[in-house]
């Protein structure tokens, strides 16, 4: 009888543990969505509304169209974003990348930028990723202050090389992407 009770208790605990984990996971998911995702969606929706209903869209389209629908143009964007002085300023919260991404998305949706360019564009607008966060990121990895001192410029300079390089790789990887539809 004791053995049976032990098994029942064991099964009960295991099931309770799994259900509890799933429930907690759901709570975390909803929490993240409410705190991080929906506020940004609201902000982005406002920007899209502004672009679509006012003349701003046409103005941006003219500016972006030339640079975002050719490889040299995208390279130029990535080099500018990767400049070691600018990149930490453009980084925080990836807000700039998210806004520019949304602007490009609107233009892609309207057909002003070929869909194939979506892939290299994703890299062109984002060579500054994490450039604002290097000291904190290194501290999370328990780096010494000396490492941080060298690590910050090392990453920033590396981006000048790897930022444009990523665009080139993405450009060649984008062959055949959404082109058969045309």
């Amino acid at each position: 009888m004791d053995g049976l009770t032990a098994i029942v208790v064991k099964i009960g605990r295991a099931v309770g543990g799994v259900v509890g984990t799933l429930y907690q996971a759901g709570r975390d998911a909803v929490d993240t969505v409410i705190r991080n995702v929906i506020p940004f969606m609201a902000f982005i929706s406002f920007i899209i509304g502004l672009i679509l209903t006012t003349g701003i869209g046409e103005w941006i389209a003219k500016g972006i169209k030339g640079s975002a629908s050719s490889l040299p143009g995208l390279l130029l964007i990535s080099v500018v974003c990767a400049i070691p002085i600018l990149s930490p300023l453009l980084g925080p919260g990836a807000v700039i990348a998210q806004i520019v991404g949304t602007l490009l998305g609107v233009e892609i949706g309207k057909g002003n930028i070929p869909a194939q360019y979506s892939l290299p564009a994703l890299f062109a607008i984002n060579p500054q990723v994490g450039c604002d966060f290097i000291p904190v990121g290194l501290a999370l990895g328990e780096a010494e202050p000396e490492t941080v001192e060298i690590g910050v410029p090392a990453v920033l300079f590396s981006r000048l090389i790897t930022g444009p390089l990523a665009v080139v790789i993405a450009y060649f990887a984008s062959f055949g992407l959404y082109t058969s539809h045309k």
Partner: protein
Amino acid sequence: MIVSGMVAYAAAATVDKPTGFLGSLATAAEDFIKVFNKGGSVLLSLMGGILPTLIVLLTAVNALVRLIGAEKIENLGTIAARPGIQYYPVRYIILPFVSVFMLTNPMAYTMGRFLPERLKPAFYDSAVSFVHPILGIFPHANPGELFVYLGIATGIQQLGYGLGDLAVRYLLVGLVVIFIRGIVTEAITAKMMSRAEKAA
């Protein structure tokens, strides 16, 4: 409620267009509210289209990560710290991928603690560069910065194309890019460290 009622009324109206001073005010007011109506419908399509899937996906992956246990990946960190060229892919492809997937942004960078000092900047560079390419398929890794990917993906969706192709390619190219980034940053760090040692 009031806003949508106003627009419905404006759309149903069959009277002449308002003229004069008050008329231009009325037109301005309508143009003003049009911006937010458009924004509202965009918000609704985002929340109706993406959000339910995202919540379910986040729940599933969160549960998976909890059931596996984040501490299980610590062994990988010690393997990645080994010298030798065959450990480069472990350090700058597998470790960043697994860290970002399991620990998400920003806790993924804590995995750097298993690496020697000279490799930490390169690992950070590699890991942080992966928090966006992963979003197309695993948005749980960095939900706060979803729109880096989603902004452009929304445009693709509007054209009526599937997102799978873009998401997969973004992830794969991301892996190639973080590998290169790790190697380049490691080389630059090594050079700067030896220069600093000489100066000291």
